[in-house]
């Protein structure tokens, strides 16, 4: 054997252990605290991915046990489909093994470095093997495997493998002992799982901490996210090495069929165009592609017009579930306002489709004098570290939040105020800044999308604050006419020794509005909604009042119940009150009813909007148009790309 072969052999044998030791920090194992979190993350990500793929509602159990000085055992168990016996050692005992390595789809792990690195870290730091139990549905028994990784050959070394009885229908359990430190502060296992629960509202996650404290992050929806489709790589997202690799391993015989079958959006016509531009014979065998020829192909990719990659392969969390997730995790903390979360339309960067979602809660009991709390997610995985390097942080910092009502020095940087901002970026390939996948790289297309979403959520915040301010002013007036003025009248009458004057004319002068508000009472699972109308004008008023309730079924009203709204014909004397009511069944998540008036100058009415002109056509539609108008008046931020084609 020649010397080069000798060397090559050695090169290959530079053990994965050594590689791991040298690159621990890149992989995220750079401190004892972080190593534990990263380990939990890898295991939980795997479980969630496996469950989703198998269309199972995930039920994940995480336990951290203190087993020695600075030594902890991590146990993660799921109800996923299980792993067939012969694959168990490969999944857990071979680095870079995994079903996902060559597939492009939105997944948590995205690369198979994950769980086996945890096994390796455990073995290197504690000297103890990992224990895996897995059972698939059709089999009688589970298999228990004790294994380590042969660090020279990057192969699993099985210490013990035997069938065991396991009282689960299916699932996988992994136990790894490692050097670690457990914290309860920020950037902890707890926080990681809490945030995981926010963006995975379909999962139930249980955590048992070393002190025995058990926390259950409960499932808030039984709807699984839509299954994500695998897509072939788009020519614009490919790198030279990948291209060469793909060409080597393809089953295609001709370069054109290689291009059409292995890439998305490449038609035969475009494939021959690519070959032409790259000066290649269309009949050429892809396996024989040289490096310089591959580079020519890559160059010609940029010169042909290609449709953007399909985007139906992405699975956003969705507006409702973001809201639910935030509510669930905030627990007893009551914010004043939940913004309607924003899910943007899918967009593309370098041939990779991505989608941005933003949610926000504001006010109430959230701390007022601290920077807003930022929750970052990539493909439903919380990002806890490297906040400063993340495109999400950069986008948030570049928005001028002062115009939306948060404090911010000089209109840049992380704003200060009682708010939590959630940003989720989903993509078939999330561009991380490093292998540790702790921060999303600053890609202009992604940053732009995040900014647009943040701005539209900012506008909601502003609307909310304006409304609140208006309410406050009016409640001041209420106080004046109901308390202060009667007291002034009484006292002045007492001093001048005359009868107390009538206040109605003064009240109408101060208020001069018709006031509509509601109060809610819960009874036997139903909501009883009382509508109060106060006529603070000096005339008798007649108008129509419409109640457009957001959820549930209406019943028991003194008005006319129509398809999805209620209406009353109101006649009310000057300076008097009137009360109406209706009940709602199945109205969980009820926020407030929107009231509309017709047949009266809407400027005179507080607490109701003018009836939209095309009310009877479709209300939702009308509301959407309103939103857009609002966006346009603020500038052209919201104008979307019309073309599906990339330049």
């Amino acid at each position, binding site marked *: 054997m020649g010397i080069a072969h000798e060397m090559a052999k050695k090169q290959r044998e530079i053990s994965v252990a050594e590689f791991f030791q040298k690159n621990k920090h890149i992989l995220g194992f750079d401190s004892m605290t972080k190593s534990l979190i990263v380990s939990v993350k890898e295991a939980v990500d795997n479980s969630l991915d496996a469950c989703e793929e198998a269309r199972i509602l995930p039920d994940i159990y995480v336990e951290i046990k203190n087993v020695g000085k600075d030594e902890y055992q991590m146990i993660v168990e799921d109800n996923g489909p299980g792993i067939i016996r012969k694959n168990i050692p490969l999944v857990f005992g071979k680095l870079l093994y995994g079903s996902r390595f060559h597939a492009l789809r939105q997944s948590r792990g995205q690369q198979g470095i994950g769980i086996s690195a945890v096994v390796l870290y455990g073995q290197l730091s504690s000297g103890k093997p990992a224990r895996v139990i897995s059972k698939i549905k059709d089999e009688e028994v589970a298999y228990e495997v004790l294994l380590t990784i042969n660090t020279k050959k990057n192969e699993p070394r099985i210490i013990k493998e035997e069938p065991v009885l396991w009282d689960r229908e299916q699932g996988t359990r992994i136990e790894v002992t490692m050097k670690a430190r457990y914290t309860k502060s920020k950037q902890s296992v707890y926080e990681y799982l809490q945030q995981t629960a926010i963006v995975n509202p379909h999962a139930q996650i249980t955590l048992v901490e070393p002190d025995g404290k058990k926390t259950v992050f409960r499932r808030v929806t039984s709807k699984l996210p839509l299954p994500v489709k695998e897509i072939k790589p788009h020519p614009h997202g490919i790198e030279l090495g990948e291209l060469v690799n793909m060409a080597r391993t393809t089953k295609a015989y001709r370069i054109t069929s290689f291009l059409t079958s292995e890439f998305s959006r490449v038609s035969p016509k475009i494939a021959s165009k690519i070959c032409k531009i790259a000066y290649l014979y269309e009949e050429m065998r892809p396996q024989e592609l040289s490096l310089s020829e591959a580079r020519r192909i890559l160059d010609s990719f940029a010169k042909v017009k290609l449709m953007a990659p399909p985007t139906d392969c992405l699975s956003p969390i969705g507006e409702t579930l973001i809201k639910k997730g935030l509510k669930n995790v905030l627990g007893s903390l009551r914010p004043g306002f939940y913004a309607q979360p924003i899910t943007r339309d899918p967009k593309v960067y370098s041939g990779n489709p991505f989608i941005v979602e933003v949610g926000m809660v504001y006010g109430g009991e959230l701390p007022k004098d601290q920077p807003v709390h930022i929750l970052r997610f990539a493909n439903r995985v919380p990002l806890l570290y490297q906040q400063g390097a993340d495109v999400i942080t950069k986008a948030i910092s570049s928005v001028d939040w002062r115009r939306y009502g948060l404090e911010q020095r000089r209109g840049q940087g992380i704003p200060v105020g009682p708010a939590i901002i959630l940003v989720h970026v989903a993509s078939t390939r999330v561009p991380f800044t490093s292998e540790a996948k702790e921060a999303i790289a600053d890609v202009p297309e992604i940053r732009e999308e995040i900014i647009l979403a943040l701005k539209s959520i900012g506008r909601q915040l502003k609307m909310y604050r304006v409304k609140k301010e208006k309410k406050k002013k009016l409640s001041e007036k209420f106080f004046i006419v109901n*308390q*202060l003025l009667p*007291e*002034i*009248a009484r006292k*002045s009458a007492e*001093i001048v020794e*005359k009868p107390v004057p009538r*206040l109605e004319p003064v009240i109408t*002068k101060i208020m001069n509005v018709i006031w509509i508000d509601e109060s809610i009472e819960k009874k036997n699972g139903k909501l009883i909604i009382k509508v109060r109308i106060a006529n603070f004008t000096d005339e008798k008023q007649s108008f129509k009042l419409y109640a457009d309730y957001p959820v549930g079924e209406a019943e028991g009203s003194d008005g006319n119940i129509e398809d999805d709204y209620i209406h009353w014909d109101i006649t009310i004397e000057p300076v008097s009150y009137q009360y109406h009511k209706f009940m709602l069944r199945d109205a969980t998540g009820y926020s407030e009813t929107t009231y509309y008036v017709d047949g009266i100058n809407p400027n005179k009415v507080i607490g109701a909007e003018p009836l939209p002109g095309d009310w009877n056509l479709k209300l939702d539609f009308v509301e959407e148009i309103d939103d857009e108008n609002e966006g346009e008046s603020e500038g052209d931020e919201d104008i979307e790309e019309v073309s599906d084609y990339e330049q």
Partner: protein
Amino acid sequence: MSSDDALKKLYEIAEQVYDELNRGEIPKMQLAARHKGNIVFDPRTGVWKYGENKITRSAKKLDGGYMILRTLYIMEFIKEMIHTKKSSTLREMYYISEGWNLAKFHSQDESNKLAEDLEIITGFLREDFKLRPEEDGASVIGNITVEEINRKGKPMRINCRDDVGDSGYLIPYNVESDKLKFVDVDADFVIGIETGGMFDRLVENGFDEKSRAILVHIKGQPARSTRRLLKRMNEELGLPVVIFTDGDPWSFRIFASIAYGAIKTAHISEYLATPTAEFVGVTASDIVNYDLPTDKLNDRDIAALQAELKDPRFNTPFWKGEIELMLQIKKKAEQQALAKYGLDYVTDTYLPEKLTEIGVLK
């Protein structure tokens, strides 16, 4: 008696509020706007008074509503005091308002301000309403004999040099002639001193006897009674009044309130201001000429100086020059910084020089 007239005036306000309500109008009160944009120089009296700008406080707004209601309660309270021949401090009124339900004051600032508002609306002094400030202990040392009516209602003669201790004669809150009379004086001028430390220095150095001066410790921003006393000494005894303060923007304001009238009390500038009072120092020029130890101006100081440039009371060549110089050197100095040249320097050199310059000393 003026208290009865003041009460009558308050009663008229209550009547007006009642009538407005009866007519279906929103009750309101009108008073002069109290900011520096609304003070004008009155050539007849030589002081600055409120101009024509009025603000209306109506029950349409929370603060107007509270003001009207509180005025009604105060009226009752004053009526009661006049009947029982009592008076109360502003602080006591604040506490008494505890029992006024909605009209209760939330801070003493609120009650002090309303007392001033009522002066402006009615044209009477708060003393007429039987309201008085807390004793603030400003004091006088010098060869002047006064006769004060004491608690027992008997006149009491005090020579402010021989009959007092080191702290001097304490100025009572009421210094009107029915309470305080000047009997005899043997001095050439009156000097108001901002800080206690400097007052004590002049006392210890015997400046009052050496320079035939009456020393008045004005204690920072001087109370009304202190300003009123300075004015009376100036007008009735014909003594020139000079003011000696720190060299910073806030001290300039102290001088302005004594000489030209304070913005807060411009409705009674005629009673309180001494238009002929002169500023001795410390000026910005003094800082330069006497090479005094200094502190740097902070942001608030600079803002205050810039505000003074827009204040009509400081619109004179002297003040414009001094304010601009201070902004230029960006420095301020305390009056005690003169100790740099020794303890006697202020009385032996600085004051004689400055007072000669002004023409008070020949």
